[in-house]
């Protein structure tokens, strides 16, 4: 099945298109997600719809280039309007996005239904932009996507530090002389282009997932921006290929939605299993921390008792040790178990009458815990 990617013409074209889309949306989506503008992809893709309809009405052709141009113009105007509303009113950014998304998309649907009434307009197929139809990509579509991919990569490389600064601290960027308006415009324009390009493959409704999911996935695996961008593009491209392969092995299976499903699964797996940030990893770490903390809490108690007695190795009975702090130790039996563990490590010592006290080694360990991690916990 894998070999068919190379041998079969259609599979080849669709894979290349999906890979290009994955790279573009993964790269740009990283910045969108880091700037907390994840929903911008959603707004842009929905706002493109009336552009497609209007372009068809005005130009009268179903040529992909014209339709995409119309989509671009409509989406671009929408972003300008959103920014204007945001800057000149009390409305929050999210709300402005949502509003414009609804108005433009609604208008787009109205246009589509109006168009379907026009006789002989040969308008069939405009609705395909809603969900995409990847299997009908042609070579010239791929060439367009390749040009845009190259353009995107060049921009990101060229403006590497500028985009990083813009995403991290835009106020500082303004202060030291980088026009955040211009930078924002470049980045937003690139995102609009990316979305428009993706419309043919995944469609309006699903495009925002392509911008968000790869970036969210990649963030879980790395703390370096450069790696994050590379990983994000890789995840995007990978989803494209896998989605294409899966959908091609089942007849009548649409490609776009499968790609989106794959990339979403990648995101979920990353969120669960990535080291350091993954949920499962953190659960496991918490579990071990708690266990260690259990022992540490007992040690802590012994330490406090030591301090309270004017720094004296006076042994205390189990009840006292139990009561001093509420916490993980629920039963005397557990307490005894923890104490024995500490004894093995040489941190506590059992005296006659079943009483316990901390040892010098235990003291040293407590002091070292306080100054762990270079942080002043005190």
């Amino acid at each position, binding site marked *: 099945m894998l070999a068919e990617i190379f041998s079969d*013409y259609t599979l080849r074209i669709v894979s290349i298109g999906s890979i290009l889309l994955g790279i573009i949306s993964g790269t740009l989506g990283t910045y969108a997600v880091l700037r907390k503008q994840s929903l911008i992809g959603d707004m842009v893709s929905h706002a493109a719809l009336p552009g497609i309809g209007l372009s068809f009405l005005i130009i009268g052709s*179903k040529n992909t280039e014209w339709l995409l141009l119309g989509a671009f113009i409509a989406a671009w105007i929408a972003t*300008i309007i959103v920014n204007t509303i945001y800057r000149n009113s009390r409305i929050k950014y999210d709300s402005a996005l949502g509003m414009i998304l609804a108005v433009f998309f609604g208008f787009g649907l109205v246009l589509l239904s*109006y168009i379907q009434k026009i006789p*002989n307009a*040969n308008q069939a197929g405009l609705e395909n932009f809603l969900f995409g139809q990847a*299997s009908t990509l042609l070579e010239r579509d791929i060439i367009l996507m390749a040009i845009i991919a190259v353009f995107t990569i060049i921009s990101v490389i060229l403006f590497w530090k500028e985009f990083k600064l813009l995403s991290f601290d835009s106020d500082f960027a303004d202060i030291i002389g980088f026009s955040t308006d211009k930078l924002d415009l470049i980045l937003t324009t690139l995102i609009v282009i990316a979305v428009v390009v993706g419309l043919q493959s995944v469609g309006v409704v699903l495009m925002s997932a392509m911008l968000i999911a790869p970036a969210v996935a990649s963030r879980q695996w790395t703390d370096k921006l450069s790696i994050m961008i590379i990983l994000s593009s890789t995840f995007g491209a990978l989803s494209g290929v896998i989605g294409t392969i899966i959908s*091609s092995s089942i007849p009548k299976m*649409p*490609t776009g939605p499968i790609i989106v499903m794959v990339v979403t699964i990648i995101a979920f797996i990353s969120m669960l299993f990535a080291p350091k940030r993954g949920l499962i990893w953190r659960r496991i770490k918490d579990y071990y921390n708690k266990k260690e903390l259990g022992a540490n809490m007992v040690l802590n108690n012994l330490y406090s008792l030591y301090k309270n007695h004017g720094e004296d190795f006076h042994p205390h009975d189990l009840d006292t040790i139990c009561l001093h702090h509420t916490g993980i130790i629920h039963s005397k039996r557990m307490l005894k178990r923890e104490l024995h563990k500490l004894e093995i490590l040489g941190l506590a010592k059992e005296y006659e009458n079943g009483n316990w006290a901390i040892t010098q080694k235990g003291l040293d360990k407590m002091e070292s815990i306080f100054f762990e991690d270079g942080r002043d916990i005190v």
Partner: protein
Amino acid sequence: MVKKLSIMIITILMLSILLIGCDSNRQSTQEIDNDKLNIVATTTIIGDTVRKIGGDKINLQVLMGPGIDPHLYKASAGDVNKMQKADLLIYNGLHLEGKMGDIFEQLQKTNKNTYAVADVIDPNNLIESEEFAGSYDPHIWFDVQLWMEVVEGIKDTLINIDPGNKDYYSENTLRYLKELEDLNNYIKSRTDELPEAKRVLITAHDAFSYFGKAYGFQVKGLQGLSTATEAGTADVRDLADFIATREIPAIFIESSVPSKNMEALKKAVESRNFSVEIGGELFSDSLGTPGTEEGTYIGTVKHNINTIVDGLLQ
């Protein structure tokens, strides 16, 4: 400046939505004629046929224009209005009008007269869908003989509701059936020009199964029975293999389906070192431009068979 422009654009957008919405409502109330039988038909094909039978004793409105895909067509508020005010609604049935099923049900519940032309046909003569058992292929009109049954069914329905014009309807029907008989023979004679091995018809979606069954063509469509299903890459690949192996000289685009699909198919075939032509445009789910020969059922069917045979004769 940008601010003012933005406000202007949003206002224009919102106004247009209102205007377009209102406009369609206005039109519908003008078309009711109380002296004649008011009929609403869904597709152009049905519309043309009903007109041939009903003549000028009926007031006919057709919802979909030429080139419009009935599988995807969504009825507007204006359309529903028309359907409610009419004396009779005639539609295809068998879920051809895929997105209007609920509306038909509603109308039936409120005791409006509705008639599905496919009802007259014996289910044994219908082609069952491969994927969904119990569901049938709705593209019955390209088997002229089946369509002749439909004509009779429509005539009976009209007479039922408007018995006063019984003779008029019957006369028109007889005349029209004769024309259809000629058409059927024409198709058969043109088909004979093609050697059997060449009788393979590749189109954008499975709209021609009845045609194939009736006139001896093997028929394959890229998309399924409904244009709502997307063609997957596997479908393109399999079809391209088929075309290249059987060395079929021509594939056909449809007027109501985007031609890009066939273009992609063509390129796929070419990568298998076989050159296939786009043989021409067929009318599949709709008639051609009104006012031309192809604007009628007979004209459309003739155009189709001519295009097919000429294309495959290469």
